[in-house]
């Protein structure tokens, strides 16, 4: 019911452009460092671990393919989703939860402002729009991380590595990751808003809402990741 109301108010005016802009910056711009760092280290580790395994079968040449496919199809969306869930989902639950227990949401209503339109809709829209952007950035940085390790530590030829990366990559690899990201962005914002909106009982209630938002969003991300992967697997 909460989800239905939240989605409905994303499409029905009035729209709060200022609040949407603020959320776009909060979710997108301010999450760039954490997502970027996660991506670069993941790409670097992936190259090293792939080398350890593939060297046993003399298949080191497949490292570039493994790095780019793992990053774009799986690791960038899931890890970015989990990191943003910890950063943004928790912040949303804490902010809306505090507003709930201090009667600020009631005050919104008495000032003829629908809390779903004012608080929930901008966060949902921003989550759905910004997660794919973050994941696209994570794709590039993650592949770059694998490239750095492969070239400077493992001694690969840069041109050959880039060629293999580019040859194996298909549009669907990136698109499937971006679709996952949009769904994860929706889930993160929804869980943050839902648990914040329903928090009760002062500081303890807000703390519980924050924990529940992060845990439920993380579990949903992993579950939906499997479902979306299976969906694309069939294509």
């Amino acid at each position, binding site marked *: 019911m909460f989800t239905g109301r939240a989605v409905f108010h994303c499409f029905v005016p009035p729209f*709060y452009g200022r609040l949407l802009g603020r959320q776009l910056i909060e979710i997108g711009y301010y999450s760039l460092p954490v997502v970027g760092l996660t991506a670069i280290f993941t790409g670097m580790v992936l190259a090293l671990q792939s080398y350890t395994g593939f060297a046993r079968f003399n298949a080191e040449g497949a490292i570039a393919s493994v790095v780019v496919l793992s990053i774009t199809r799986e690791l960038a969306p899931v890890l970015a989703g989990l990191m943003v869930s910890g950063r943004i989902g928790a912040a949303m639950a804490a902010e809306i939860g505090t507003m709930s227990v201090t009667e600020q949401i009631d005050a919104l209503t*008495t000032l003829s402002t629908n809390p779903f339109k004012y608080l929930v809709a901008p966060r949902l829209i921003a989550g759905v729009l910004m997660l794919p952007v973050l994941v696209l950035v994570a794709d590039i940085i993650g592949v770059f991380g694998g490239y750095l390790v492969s070239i400077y530590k493992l001694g690969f030829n840069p041109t050959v590595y880039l060629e293999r990366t580019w040859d194996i990559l298909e549009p669907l690899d990136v698109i499937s990751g971006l679709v996952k990201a949009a769904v994860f962005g929706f889930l993160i914002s929804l869980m943050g808003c839902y648990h914040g909106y329903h928090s009760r009982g002062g500081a303890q209630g807000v703390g519980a809402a924050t924990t529940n938002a992060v845990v439920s969003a993380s579990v949903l991300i992993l579950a939906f990741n499997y479902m979306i992967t299976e969906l694309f697997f069939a294509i």
Partner: protein
Amino acid sequence: MANPIPKIEISELHKGFGQKTVLDGLNLEIAEGESVVVIGGSGTGKSVLLKNILGLLTPENGSIKVDGEETVGMSWPDRETVLNKIGMLFQNAALFDSLSVWENVAFGLIEGGGMKRNEAREIAVAKLSDVGLAPDIGKLSPAELSGGMRKRVGLARAIATEPEIIFFDEPTTGLDPIMGDVINDLIVERVKQLGATALSITHDMASARKIADRIAMIYKGKIIWAGRVDEIDDSGNEFVDQFIHGRAEGPIQMDVRAG
């Protein structure tokens, strides 16, 4: 000639939470331009009454009419029209932390009324002045204000849209007696200036005597006595007598254990 239709008319209002009945067939009428204060102990349903009128809670039974129009079960667009007539001062002011003081005061004008920010800012500064706050205060964040200042800002926000009806939820709770009296004076002045109808809930008898034309006492979810403010000392009601004199002994037995 006085308007024969009460500004607010509440009939047989029932509301409970789980097994606990909070409002048990409450009846109350408030005439246009009248200031009614509902008194009663903690947990007797005062705040629940206000939240039902505002539509923040939905009653199980009963009727709430504003200007003769039934509000129970109203859809959001109609509710919005009713809420546009109402201003509310919350117990802890409920100021929006993410907005500056002036943006809080102007919120109803900008978001509810679609007014331009510059125009709304001028009105907000004027309303802050009406409650005795300097224009500089408008730039501050609510976190930087004292309890008394927060109440004043809450009052400025409640009157900013010049509503026909204003609700006051425990307006003096948490304030020292002098600041409490300042807030009471401001409430009386601003309500008179607007010609608004006021409904306040409090357990502070000094506040009730100052701001009320009429006082109603709520006990176990019902209005057990209502009369003019000058009649309360001779109400002849032992529940009212016990409450206004703050006596532990009497017919009202306070629950000392939760539940």
